[in-house]
């Protein structure tokens, strides 16, 4: 479908093409292509904060943000295009992925499609949060974690452990909920926490490379018992909202008093007044809910590779990292100790000591399917 916007963009691009020779004469101007698969908060961060900072630091250079969210498989398609461009030695027309996992397409790392981030290439790489360690082709520049949000005006004592959380939910039937695991990370990581709870609180049991259908059935089976036990006490006796925002909405409307949330979405919602100022956030102390980092990636065949590396460097700079905490409520990609002391103080309660993770792919798919079949159904078993 051709929207009005696209037509306008087409005209704009057309007139820009006509004006281009004049511009080239005036200034050697480079425009990077940055691809973003993230929500509007991330798009705003890049358009309103990163872009001006980049233009100031590198006069004559700028970047153009293209949003792939909700379009086919998003950035995956662009990565596939970049790989195809490498084979045909043509311009991939992408210089920077705001967030991408280079493990797909499967052979792209072996073929050398992705830049390896090393200390001699990127200043500030040594400052990264050690919890974020991953492939050298991935640059963690921001993070977030799932927390428990509750209305402090109604909940006097916040749960500090899984057992306390379940006990609270049972004492207050219908006042707790979490989103469907396949529709947003907040619900997904709550379900993951139940999986961890039922399996000795050992996140290390689940790795991207050790999926086993039989083990999955066994381990998830134990988790379903935990969640089925909680099921009748949740909002609407198991009416799970269809995503991060619908869950936030139930809390905002006062339909529930406690939910699982993404740290960044909750902090932003409180700041915007969507959630009441009495909203409080807490992390479970026996084992935190999962979180993770957003990793940028740069294709080696990027037309403006040097500038793309400069952009990567900028994303780790103190001003941008501070903005990530202040503006979008995210966690920094660099270690908290490299941020201004006052900022560190303000967030001391939710600075994670560990960020458990859970692999995407097979484990995740089996978990989501199992949840629908064994927990969400209201069939008596």
């Amino acid at each position, binding site marked *: 479908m051709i929207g009005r916007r696209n037509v306008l963009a087409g005209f704009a691009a057309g007139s820009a093409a006509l004006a281009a020779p004049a511009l080239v004469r005036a200034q050697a101007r480079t425009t990077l292509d940055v691809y973003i698969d993230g929500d509007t908060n991330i798009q705003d961060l890049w358009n309103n904060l990163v872009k001006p900072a980049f233009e100031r630091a590198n006069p004559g250079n700028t970047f153009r943000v293209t949003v792939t969210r909700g379009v086919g498989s998003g950035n995956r398609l662009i990565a596939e295009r970049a790989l195809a461009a490498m084979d045909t030695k043509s311009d991939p027309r992408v210089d920077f992925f705001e967030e991408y996992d280079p493990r797909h397409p499967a052979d792209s790392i072996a073929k050398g499609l992705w830049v390896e981030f090393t200390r001699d290439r990127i200043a500030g790489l040594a400052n990264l949060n050690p919890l974020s360690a991953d492939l050298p082709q991935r640059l963690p520049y921001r993070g977030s974690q799932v927390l428990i949000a509750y209305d402090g005006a109604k909940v006097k004592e916040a749960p500090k452990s899984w057992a306390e959380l379940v006990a609270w939910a049972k004492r207050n039937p219908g006042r707790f909920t979490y989103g*469907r695991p*396949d529709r947003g990370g907040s619900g997904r990581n709550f379900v993951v926490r139940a999986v961890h709870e039922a399996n000795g609180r050992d996140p290390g049991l689940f790795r991207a490379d050790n999926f086993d259908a039989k083990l999955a059935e066994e381990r998830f089976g134990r988790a379903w018992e935990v969640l089925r036990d909680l099921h009748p006490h949740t909002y*609407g006796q*198991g*009416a*799970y*909202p*269809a995503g991060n925002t*619908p869950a936030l*909405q*139930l809390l905002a*409307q*006062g*339909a529930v008093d406690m939910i699982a949330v993404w740290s960044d979405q909750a902090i932003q919602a409180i700041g915007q007044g969507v959630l009441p100022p009495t909203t409080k956030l807490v992390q479970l102390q026996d084992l935190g809910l999962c979180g993770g980092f957003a990793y940028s990636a740069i294709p080696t065949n990027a037309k403006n590779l040097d500038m793309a590396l400069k952009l990567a460097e900028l994303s780790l700079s103190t001003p941008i990292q501070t903005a990530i905490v202040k503006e979008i409520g995210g966690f920094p990609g660099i270690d908290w100790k490299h941020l201004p002391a006052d900022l560190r103080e303000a967030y001391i309660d939710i600075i994670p000591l560990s960020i458990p993770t859970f692999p995407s792919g097979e484990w995740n*798919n089996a978990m*989501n*399917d199992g949840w*629908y*079949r064994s927990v*969400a*159904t*209201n*069939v008596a078993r």
Partner: protein
Amino acid sequence: MTIALGRTRARVRARWAETATGYALVALPLAVLCVLVLMPASVAVVETVIVTGPDGPRLSLDHYTAFFADPFARRNLIYSLIQTAASTATVLAIALAIAVYLRFGTGRAVRVVHALALFPLFVPAIIAAYALIRFLGPNGLFQMLLERVGIGGYASPYLTPLGPFIGFVWEGLPLPVLVLTAGLAQVSDHAIEAARDLGAGGVRIFREILLPQVTRSLLIACSLVFLGIFGSYTIPYMMGPAAPEMMGVFMQRTYDQLQRPQDAQVQAVVSFLVCALVSVAYVRLILKERR
């Protein structure tokens, strides 16, 4: 004689030209339909009946046996059928009442009702779903209004099967209202007046004069509404429970979240068969009507 023959020949030629123009006009949409819909659909259908075993691919209905053996999938299908049937019946009943009112009512109220009945046509499903959630949801406007007049104990339909039902009824109204008002417009006033002169009451006029003449419109509306609701995604996804799911939501989740395109194809073909059955019933009734 020669003149008459010449005339006939000219007439034949004209008819032939007319036929050719007709075919030329449908050629393009037909080609698009074949390339973009029928071809991929038949490829998908073929793929679902081929099972690749250790000794190569073979024809088999294993995928379908698996679908119908799975209580979860069966429950989703049954839920979709019940939800669609209930919503369709309700939509048609309300639409018929509105259409009759629009046909015989007088005054400004008619125009207001007409506009209100058609209004959902211009509201995208996602906006309607959000609006209904805000209105009918927990602590929403409707609950507050009820509490204002002293009615407590409101249980929100949001995230229950009743949620999408309300959404479907609201979203589904305009189309059958349009079709049925067009159908009722063809009923002549004379017939009704004649019946009235012979002493027929309102109910009898409705049953014996109006209903037989709008059966066709009713069938058209019924199939349109049924197909629209059965294949819907946005409203059941946003307003309905996590489980059971409508087939559209189930399919999307299987394809996108579980990354099992083949299972999604099987679900799609099953849904298609349900819709095809409805279409066949509709076409046969229309043909019978013509004869």
